[in-house]
């Protein structure tokens, strides 16, 4: 009752407010008629202005754009995605009759949740993808293996493999469906950037684009991959190293569908066989750069033989129960019955894509945030593809950044202010750095062919196989829903 006197005020809003709103409308750049063009309405100063400029429309950049446009507290933000990839002009689903692309990602349940929240998962389900409920990791020495099953963690599946282009397409579709979202994809690239300074008393960073245009943005998000231009322009240094290793990737065919993720550790590094839907699997195979060059130019039959050799009959015997596992049984008190039987991976019949080779390395930005700038995805951290975590870390960045920005908006903060962006940095570093350390440790342990180490890692597999809580934690960690694997 006491409030009644105040209610009229809503309709009697001061003229000032409407004037402000008008000014806001005239300065917006992202009107729907403009479609994908960047050269739309100009504000007085003949410059374009937005709240968030996302440089890079890869998986991570698109996910952030879509996430910001989904949340009630951030959907009013004027967001621009800058990327000249022709892919971003596409509409509708990808044609299913094409062979699966060799660049794929293993998405974790945490990533799937993000996709569901932003309305992109339904589009993935309409396109090619492969859930797997089993995972087998073993060692060429025949000393150890471990087989994970989704049942062990009370889930229906352990992960899902999706082609990167399907993930991108689904995110793009979810973005195109957002209503009232003043969103624009600018088909151009970032050339250089001027940060706001105390001198010009401006809140906006100025982006110079390769098409000659400029864009002014309060917050610039570097989602432009491992060679990030934004990171360089912001003067953010990285720490990292290259491994003396390369990965080759390709798509292969079987006689029937594969439902398990397979990984075997060989003297020069691991080979992984991931289901990708229909009768296809994806191969990520780590080896020396020389071997990689060799394999890249091999004729296809020879390559297929080499793959089958690496996955099954080459290097050493299949692992079976040994004195080592009996020893572990007695230490841990676990019975053999909890153990799942070793299985032989499905035969590869042919290669159906190009064979690509990538040098491997690990790179981590020393800062994820400086004033007006944040980094997400590979721009902030690049990991080798061993554990299939690369893009999942990036999607984790997206969830956290979107949440931090929404919290900022809810308390009227300036979204470019450093205290806010540092909060994102703190959250992500605590999530990413341990994961990177684990991956680097993996790399070091598994890339050396040295007997004592071989026994050690075989013991590691056995321990993981036999001690259910540990195994459970490792799976949860790999699935992206747990902070740290060993201490919980």
């Amino acid at each position, binding site marked *: 009752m006491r409030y009644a006197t105040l209610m009229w005020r809503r309709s009697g809003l001061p003229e000032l407010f409407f004037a402000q709103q008008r000014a806001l409308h005239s300065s917006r750049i992202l009107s729907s008629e403009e479609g994908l063009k960047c050269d739309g309405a100009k504000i007085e100063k003949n410059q374009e202005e937005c709240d968030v400029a996302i440089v890079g429309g890869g998986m991570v950049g698109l996910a952030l754009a879509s996430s910001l446009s989904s949340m009630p507290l951030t959907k009013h933000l004027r967001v621009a995605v800058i990327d000249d990839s022709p892919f971003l002009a596409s509409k509708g689903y990808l044609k299913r009759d094409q062979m699966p692309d060799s660049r794929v990602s293993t998405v974790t349940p945490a990533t799937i949740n993000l996709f569901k929240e932003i309305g992109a998962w339904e589009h993935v389900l309409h396109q090619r993808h492969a859930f797997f409920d089993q995972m087998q990791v073993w060692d060429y020495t025949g000393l150890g293996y471990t087989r994970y099953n989704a049942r062990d963690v009370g889930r229906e599946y352990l992960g899902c493999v999706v082609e990167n282009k399907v993930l991108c397409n689904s995110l793009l579709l979810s973005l195109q469906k957002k209503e009232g979202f003043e969103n624009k994809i600018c088909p151009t690239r970032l050339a250089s950037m001027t940060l706001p300074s105390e001198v010009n008393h401006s809140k906006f960073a100025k982006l110079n684009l390769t098409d000659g245009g400029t864009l002014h943005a309060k917050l610039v998000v570097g989602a432009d991959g491992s060679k990030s231009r934004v990171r360089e322009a912001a003067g953010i240094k990285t720490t990292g190293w290259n491994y003396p290793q390369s990965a080759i990737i390709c798509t292969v065919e079987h006689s029937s569908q594969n439902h398990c993720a397979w990984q075997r550790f060989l003297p020069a590094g691991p080979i992984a066989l991931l289901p990708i839907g229909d009768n296809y699997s994806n191969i990520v195979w780590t080896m020396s750069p020389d071997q990689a060059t060799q394999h890249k130019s091999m004729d296809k039959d020879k390559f297929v033989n080499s793959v089958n050799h690496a996955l099954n009959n080459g290097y050493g015997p299949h692992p079976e129960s040994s004195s080592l596992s009996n020893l572990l049984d007695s230490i841990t008190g676990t019975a053999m019955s909890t153990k799942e039987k070793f299985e032989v991976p499905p035969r590869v019949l042919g290669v159906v894509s190009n064979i690509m080779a990538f040098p491997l390395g690990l790179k981590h930005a020393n800062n994820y945030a400086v004033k007006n700038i944040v980094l997400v995805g590979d721009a902030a951290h690049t990991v080798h593809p061993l554990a299939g975590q690369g893009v999942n870390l990036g999607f984790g960045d997206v969830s956290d950044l979107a949440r931090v920005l929404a919290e900022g908006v809810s308390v009227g903060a300036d979204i470019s202010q*450093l205290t806010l962006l540092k909060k994102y940095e703190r959250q992500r570093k605590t999530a990413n750095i341990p994961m990177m350390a684990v991956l680097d440790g993996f790399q070091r342990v598994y890339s050396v062919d040295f007997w004592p180490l071989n026994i050690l890692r075989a013991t590691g597999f056995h321990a993981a196989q036999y001690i259910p809580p540990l195994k459970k934690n490792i799976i949860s960690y790999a699935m992206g829903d747990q902070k740290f694997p060993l201490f919980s």
Partner: protein
Amino acid sequence: MAMRSFLRSRRSLSRSLLQPDLLRNPNPNPNYVSRSLIPALLPLRSYSPASDPTTKNPIRDAATDEINGFKSSLNPIEVAKFAAIAETWWDPEGPFKPLHLMNPTRVSFIRSTLCRHFRRDPYSPRPFEGLKILDVGCGGGILSEPLARLGAVVTGIDAVEKNINIARIHAASDPSTSSIDYTCMTAEDLVRENQKFDAVISLEVIEHVAEPLDFCKSLGALAVPGGAVVISTINRTMRAYATTIVAAEYILNWLPKGTHEWSKFVTPEELTLILQRASVSVQEMAGFVYNPLTGNWSLSDDISVNYIAFGIKESSSDSEKTRTVAEQKTDFVS
């Protein structure tokens, strides 16, 4: 009693430790902020009339300068202190760092209480759209700016001209805050102009004014009937005292002169009764707790150090009633 004499000896000790050149260089130690807990929030009064009878008491002079029944809230020494560090308002690592750190927490309290009171959508990015809000003692605009981004039509006033200039320049650089109306004046000046606001907010100011009761009466007078009044300050408890002493030890490194007038801090009970006299009934109160490990503040029900109160200005018939009731109560302000 024992505590009071301890306080007094503490005060003279701190004065003797101060060197005059600290006046010109208030910040010799660049790391002081991270170690001090709440330096910028603490009121500093250099000389009390009792301890230095030769000095003319500016507090009393200002307080007796009564206009239209609304006494001046100015405490010139306090005002001078803020003028001296005005340039540092927006330095997140400067003397006002604690206010910057506390800000999201206090805005979230204001957001939730005002959304509930004015029936605004808590999920809206601009829930205060069109609400007229007054920020009394706005300083550099640390609170005014978020209020404007949340949609409010904000007026910010402060007794220090320098603060207002800083606030104006800072707000002008962002279109979402450029509409804030900043003026150098006191709450009493605005009362004389007969201005009214949907919400009157004054954070970390009451401990710096000449007379809390007069100040609150001005705040109450500026709110429309049914409007909101929000005040935050420091409690007068042993814990707050300990905190101020800890802070003081660091402050000794950088603040000109003076010590904390702990006895002038207002307790939540007193604030509630003072506001009652100003026709504002307190509805909700929360404490801010500081976690030195994370450097974060959060809302809690521990109001023993920093606290914030939300009240509603009564419509005139209500207030007549309560005022008489309040007046019958014992005189709690010494």
